[in-house]
């Protein structure tokens, strides 16, 4: 009732142009459709294990599930090859989430001024069709056609795997489009709201930054060498990726690549459980210069590569059977050209936005490489395998703005311009727990705060309340 009352409230603001606010709304809409996740009842059906064997709460993997994945979706009990399956077995799972949600976005630019837009109603997530498993012992695959809520499909994952090369678990190769080896997997995130359904730290870009290629939360095209100890306590991975944000058709650079590295070590801590700490780093380059035709950038012609990197620590800490804490940190750095908006001219052109093309000029005085630091805390309380309470707090602070002192003769951007903080709380309740299907009653609230990015230069708060049925079969 109160929500209904408040949803009619709006605030009139002076009309001020702001690309940042409009872009924020567009990003939120895009992100709200990007909730595909990997949880496969098809695997549970194949092996006769309950969802809870591999998932702390589906779709989030537990340690055993991580080992299963690292072994190429194999239990390594000599029953992994398809020859052991009923010929009628077809490893397909679908997942979709009907929801009701209430989204409230502050300080949106409209023709009548800057105002808060609040809306609520029934809605749908996208639809995922997961299919994956073994083609033969140590040969596996994963294909994930994924749609947005309007049923427009794309390939979120397409890969083949060769595992245990030369009989060693330290040599496994993945080829195609896949999720980067993030210990805290965004594709297996437990939350569903537009801002809470992603890890902000995996996608952060400073305001006005043109580099879309450093988002470690997006599935990427490339090849990965991965290895692990027999018990998966020690893990490493090295990936060579195209700097194209996972987009097919070589749409961006002529010759741009990115490397991703991750390693971790787990420790037996007795009754507390297995603790894991790790590091990751992504280092790459991406184009800023484009050939054009009638002023429009030509896909695949991007040169003038500039570099970027992000690196951080990951921790998975368990305090007995009921409480755990996931931690990710990040230090990010983009070349100053990206900071000034150079980079993804292709998508800007598609959206009708006048992007920037690096045609040999120089950057304005005061231009600097944007850098930032962020941290993510995600505690869980696992009441039982059927009920999990989720919390998350993320904060990302700019440590160096792209527009420094003296930029355009001014003082540059405020030190906190574009900082974000967000928290999410929620829970998932699975009324049944079998090896055949997954169903969760999901309730979640997210709040996001962004500094100085409103059309008036003030802060923006966005919130979302979501209730839904999340199911997979």
């Amino acid at each position, binding site marked *: 009732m*109160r*929500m209904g*009352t*408040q949803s009619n*409230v709006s*605030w009139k603001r002076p009309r001020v142009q702001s690309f940042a606010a409009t872009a924020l709304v567009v990003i939120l809409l895009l992100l709200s459709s990007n909730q595909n996740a990997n949880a496969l009842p098809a695997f549970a059906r194949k*092996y*006769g*294990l*309950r969802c*809870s*064997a591999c998932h702390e709460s589906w779709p989030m993997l537990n*340690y*055993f599930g991580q*080992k299963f994945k690292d072994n190429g979706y194999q*239990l*390594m*009990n*000599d*029953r992994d090859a398809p020859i052991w399956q009923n010929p009628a077995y077809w490893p397909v799972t679908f997942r979709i989430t009907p929801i009701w949600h209430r989204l409230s976005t502050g300080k949106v630019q409209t023709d009548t001024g800057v105002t808060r837009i609040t809306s609520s109603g029934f809605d749908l997530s996208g639809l995922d069709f997961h299919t994956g498993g073994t083609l033969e012992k140590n040969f596996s695959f994963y294909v994930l056609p994924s749609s947005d809520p309007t049923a427009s499909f794309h390939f979120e994952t397409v890969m083949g795997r060769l595992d245990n090369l030369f*009989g060693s678990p330290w040599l496994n190769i993945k080829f195609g489009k896949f999720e980067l080896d993030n210990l805290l997997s965004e594709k297996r995130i437990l939350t569903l709201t537009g801002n809470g359904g992603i890890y902000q730290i995996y996608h952060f870009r400073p305001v006005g930054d043109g580099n879309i290629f450093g988002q470690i939360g997006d599935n990427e095209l490339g090849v990965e060498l991965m290895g692990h100890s*027999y*018990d*998966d306590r020690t893990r490493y991975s090295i990936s060579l990726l195209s700097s194209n944000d996972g987009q097919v058709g070589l749409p961006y650079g002529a010759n741009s690549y990115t490397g991703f590295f991750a390693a971790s070590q787990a420790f*037996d*801590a*007795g*009754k507390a*459980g*297995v603790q894991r700490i790790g590091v990751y780093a992504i280092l790459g380059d991406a184009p800023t210069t484009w050939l054009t035709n009638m002023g429009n950038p030509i896909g695949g012609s991007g040169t003038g590569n500039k570099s970027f990197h992000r690196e951080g620590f990951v921790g998975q800490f368990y305090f007995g*059977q009921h409480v755990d804490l996931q931690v990710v940190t990040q230090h990010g750095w983009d070349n100053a050209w990206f900071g000034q908006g150079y980079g993804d001219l292709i998508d800007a052109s598609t959206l009708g936005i006048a992007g920037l093309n690096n045609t040999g000029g120089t950057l304005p005085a005061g231009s600097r490489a944007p850098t930032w630091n962020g941290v993510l805390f995600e505690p869980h309380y696992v*009441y*039982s*395998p*059927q*009920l999990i*309470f989720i919390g998350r707090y993320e904060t990302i602070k700019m440590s160096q703005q792209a527009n420094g002192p003296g930029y355009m003769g001014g003082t540059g951007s405020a030190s906190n311009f574009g900082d974000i903080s967000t928290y999410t*709380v929620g*829970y998932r*309740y699975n*009324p*049944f*727990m*079998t*090896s055949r299907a997954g169903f969760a*009653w999901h*309730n979640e*609230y997210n709040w996001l705060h962004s500094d100085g990015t409103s059309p008036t230069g003030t802060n923006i708060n966005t919130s979302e*309340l979501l*209730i839904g049925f999340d199911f997979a079969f």
Partner: protein
Amino acid sequence: MKRLNQEHFFSVILSFVLVAGFTVARAQDVPDVGPHPPTPPKAMESHIGNLTGHSQDAKSDYRRYCAGCHGDLGDGNGENAVWLDPKPRDFTIATFKCRSTLTGILPTDEDLFDTVGRGLTNSNMPIWNTFTRQQRADLVAYIKTFSPRWEKEKAGDPIKIPAEPPVTIESISHGKALFTKLECWKCHGPQGKGDGPSASTLTDSKDQPIRPYNFASGGDDSRFKCGSTNADVYKIFITGVDGTPMPSFADVIQPNDAWDLVHFLRTLQVNRHSKENDVLKAAGGKIPPYVEKQAEAPASQSGTRTAGGGN
């Protein structure tokens, strides 16, 4: 506006509290599939080295990882059991395949601890080496709550395994003769492929069809159900595989004879690199016929000849 924001905030919190409270009330920490235990199981302990496992600490892990196959009552009737072959272990009768104790005797806690961490090849039992040692010890204690045997009987002592003698073509030859004499081939087949004349008639102690082990299957990483080393194979002869037609040979085979049999069986694993296959290859790839006098000659191999390693 500030008042509205506060109301909004508190309404969100209230809705969470109400719905979460309802959900917690529904999510009792009891099995949701199959029959519920009539009474809480008696607390048990396990002892693995310096570790002490407590059954009450494994309740959640058992439900999360084990109950789907072994059932909430430990009777091997989890919701997946009907689809599995071989069937999950029935903990209520406390009969276990992989033991270091003689046939019919309860296994040691270490035996169960090792089985959980090793998994059982050619079955749906995974390798649960992702648990902490404490978790595994707790699960062993929990498994023991399902059968009254653990209260009435004591676990046996582990058999003694004498040192393995060197692998020779003679030991392989003798092992092959034993394979014939002891009629292992009737179930396992002349080539060890699990296709002997009795193979199709075998059932386990619960009248479920069971296949003899196929030594020729698998590659260089092939394992036996109860381990992968020669000592593990030796142990299988002496202890038997309880609950299956595989008997104990503790009373009919001498230790060195058992080692000879181990050496021969390794040569049946044609796709696996082993010292036995190296010796066989060096001898031209053929096992010479066993000559009785070799068996009567004083043993050159090391190791004691105590039968079966303990009674």
